[in-house]
């Protein structure tokens, strides 16, 4: 009798989470796989949707716009990941020193993390403003002419402009993780190195960098996955333009699936996106595991 009562309450504890996970994670996960083989539309048509086999996948994979979005996503990731990680590590190293006013510096460095991304996007839109925003004025001062640079309206500059904004918006997260990692490195190693006459760079190479190996793996993976999901900045600032130069995988999925209502087609994109993210995470883990050994 007691055992039954225990089983009953075990079930009661599990039930809400199991039901919600089934409905909102597991069902959509398999549903997106199924939908990617149909011509389902967001707004129901009089004709029932049909099984179309691999047609969505072959259309996605032969669409030049899709490949442009893939290239742009990789381009963004390859720029933002090293840039943002370097800034985060640099800031963490700085804030790990015994500075006067350290609490102030740390508080300031955290601020971008606390501002919602849509607010940050609005602020940076003003900074990139044509013709007289901050960046235009700065460029004119340096080049000493008054040529107007439309950062977000230029095929070559729009993505780098978004990289800069994105790095500013989220570097404190990685910085805090690096900071925690730095504090795990025992102080006496540095003292010993100082006694042996190692300079700052030698200490960084011999103690700090190896000491951060696990933190690096983690930071690299989360920053990369975050970069692959780039959407909000694009949706608000450029809508993928000019000429598709800032179109990303998620934006491509959004436009096809939501704006045009082609759920079946766009589901194929979301399946491919899931596979891509999973593969990248596994590769990064393997590469770093080998270096670690």
């Amino acid at each position, binding site marked *: 009798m007691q055992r039954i*009562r*225990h*089983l*009953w*309450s*075990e079930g009661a*504890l*599990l039930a*809400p*989470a*199991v039901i919600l*996970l089934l409905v*909102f994670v597991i*069902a*959509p*996960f398999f*549903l*997106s796989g199924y*939908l990617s083989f149909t011509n*389902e539309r*967001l707004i129901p048509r009089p004709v029932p949707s049909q099984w179309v086999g691999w047609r969505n996948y072959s259309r996605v994979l032969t669409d030049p716009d899709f490949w442009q979005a893939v290239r742009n996503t990789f381009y963004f990731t390859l720029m933002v990941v090293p840039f943002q990680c370097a800034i985060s590590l640099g*800031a963490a190293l*700085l804030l790990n020193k015994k500075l006067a006013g350290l609490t102030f510096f740390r508080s*300031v*460095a955290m601020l971008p993390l*606390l501002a*919602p991304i*849509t*607010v940050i*996007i*609005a*602020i940076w*839109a003003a*900074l990139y*403003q044509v013709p*007289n*925003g*901050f960046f*235009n*004025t700065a460029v004119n001062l340096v080049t000493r002419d008054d040529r107007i640079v439309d950062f977000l309206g230029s095929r070559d500059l729009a993505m780098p402009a978004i990289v800069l904004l994105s790095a*500013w918006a989220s570097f404190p997260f990685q910085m*805090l*993780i690096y*900071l*925690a990692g730095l504090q795990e490195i025992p102080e006496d190693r540095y003292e010993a190195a100082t006694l042996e006459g190692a300079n*700052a760079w030698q200490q960084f190479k011999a103690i700090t960098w190896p000491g951060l190996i696990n*933190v690096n793996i983690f930071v690299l993976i*989360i920053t990369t996955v975050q970069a692959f*999901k780039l*959407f*909000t900045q694009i*949706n*608000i600032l450029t809508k993928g333009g000019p000429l598709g130069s800032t179109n990303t995988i*998620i934006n491509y*999925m*959004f436009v096809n699936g939501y704006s045009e209502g082609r759920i079946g087609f766009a589901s194929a994109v*979301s399946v491919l*996106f899931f596979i891509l*993210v*999973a593969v990248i995470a596994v590769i990064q883990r393997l590469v770093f595991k080998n270096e670690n050994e």
Partner: protein
Amino acid sequence: MSRTLTYFFALLMVLVVLGPLMMMVTVSLNPSEPDISVNMGTIRAFIPHVVSFENYQAVLTDRNHPFLRYLFNTAFIVGAILIGAILVNSMAAFALAWGQGRYRKWAVVAVVAMIAVPMESLVLPLLLMSSRMGIVNSYEVQILPFIANAFALFLFYQFFTKIPKDLIEAARVDGMNLFQTYWYIGLPLCKPIIATLSILIFLEQWNNYLWPVMVTRGPEFRPLSVAMAAYFDSNRMYWGQIMAFAVMMSIPIMVFFLIVQRHFVQSVTGSAVKG
């Protein structure tokens, strides 16, 4: 690195971080749009030279964009998700940690696997489901998908497995069933995890954009994050008002988090170590 150089970099960082935020505040306090435009690229865009709350008044009385309604929507949605997520996930985690079933080992593996599934690859089927169920443009559609959370469940699970076995056994001897053990022993113990998750879930929802943009139509159920983007879109070039909207949306939260800073830092780094 010499001390001077260290301070130079520290001050540079302060400038780079505070600059854009100062501009937000400065522009929001300037009632004259032509004046804002003329000074956009100068130092006067970063240091206030007029103080007026006209822009704030304009935002608060804008009929197309009811700021207070947006604020309420966000508070309601985030609040409901927080309460739901904490209860639902801690309950399931407690059953996985101290239940009897053999299934538990596999269930934990499944939970860990679910952490890796990005929300982005689920939004389209979720959108289709919601639209066929007729719950698009509502509070439910913005709350329900985020309550059960594999990451939160796993954090709770890790915490519960560290409770001393004697404590659980003693409760059982006293005749408590598993639910009572959870309610009287498990839940009160996990306050630190609750604090951490509250902060992480808040930040996540605060920046949530893709899903709410898909499932909200007008101001009625729209959260602040999407409202900011919509306001920006419909008031292009009215920088004073855009920035007033941005200030009202972000400054109170910044102040709050700076006050609970230590806890905040622990939550972010804790998520990293445990994740």
